[in-house]
């Protein structure tokens, strides 16, 4: 195959290394943002995406009022960041194209790796499937059951693991392997 990262020009290797480093940095801060806004437990992810919509899908027949005392500490308490349907539509609209481009960029790196065809196909499939499942989990959590939060968590980890596999293989084959050109 013409495109082989082990034997490619050093400029190509440098470009791929820069891409991987930049994506790695964005993944680290992506994880920090998830920790800040949604958390890593099924309960916190369910609270973010399912919200109150799960408990009260239908409006009451007549408008009703529930009143409860509040203290100033309640106002200061940590707010659960919630993502309602409108915001999830917006999030899906802006994130999925970006995830697709990241998966495509990492997929192009995978194509240049020396890997058995099936493993390469599997890795490319994982790169695209993980973000699909990430958002599928969010939508299922919102629309079907909070138990689907686990899908989002698993998919988020799968995105990280897929990136680490690609990055490790690429760095090894480009810069450390004995067979490199």
């Amino acid at each position, binding site marked *: 195959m013409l495109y082989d990262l082990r034997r490619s020009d050093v400029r190509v290797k440098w470009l791929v290394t820069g891409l991987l480093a930049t994506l790695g940095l964005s993944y680290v801060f992506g994880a920090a943002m998830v920790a800040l806004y949604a958390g890593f437990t099924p309960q916190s992810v369910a609270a973010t995406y399912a919200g109150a919509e799960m408990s*009260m899908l239908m409006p009451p027949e007549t408008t009703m009022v*529930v*009143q409860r*005392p509040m203290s100033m500490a309640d106002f200061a308490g940590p707010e659960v960041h919630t993502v309602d349907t409108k915001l999830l539509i*917006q999030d899906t*609209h802006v994130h999925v194209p970006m995830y697709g481009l990241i998966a495509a960029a990492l997929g192009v790196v995978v194509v240049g790796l020396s890997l058995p065809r099936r493993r390469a196909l599997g890795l490319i499939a994982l790169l695209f499937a993980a973000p699909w499942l990430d958002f599928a989990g969010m939508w299922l959590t919102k629309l079907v059951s909070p138990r689907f939060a686990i899908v989002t968590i698993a998919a988020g980890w799968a995105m990280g693991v897929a990136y680490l596999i690609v990055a490790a293989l690429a760095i090894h084959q480009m810069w450390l392997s004995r067979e490199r050109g």
Partner: protein
Amino acid sequence: MNFLIRAAAIAAMLHITPIVVLVKRPDAVRALLPGADAYVAREVHLSGTDAHRLHETVDWSPEDGVLVFYGGTAGSTSVGALEFVRVDTPHGPIEVAVGFTPQGAVRGVVVTKATVEMKPWVLEAVAAGLTDHYRGLRPGGAPGVPGGAAGIAGRAGNLAVYVAGEVDKGVARALAAYGAFYNHVRA
């Protein structure tokens, strides 16, 4: 490759920046319910008909169909109520706190949250006197949106005026919700 670069640039431009807290909620509560020493949260779960009526009035449905008002009292005297209203914009959400006097007029407005991108626009709008334009407004007053954006049009940049228009929407929603549902539904 050219397509990929263009697509990445477009996707990056569309990406909504994270939300930042401009004023903490307790600080907004202290400013809008001055002197209060006890608070109550009044959650109004709207029926389908009432939710539709509110939507027809201000083109808005509260999250999960629930309006939340916070009332404050000093001893046995009411000092008013406030609402936190979210406005979704193409640049992400902002949150506006609107406080009312016991007589039902707007006591003050505080923009509590915005996205990183919109924060400087909000600060410029507030510095241009945006929130002064809402003081004294009452539900059922003059039709149309509150005139905050129009009020700062000559004194602030286009983006500040734009975000002031979004704050206007938040205030209009708070006025409509307060006027129709704060005192008219029994707990």
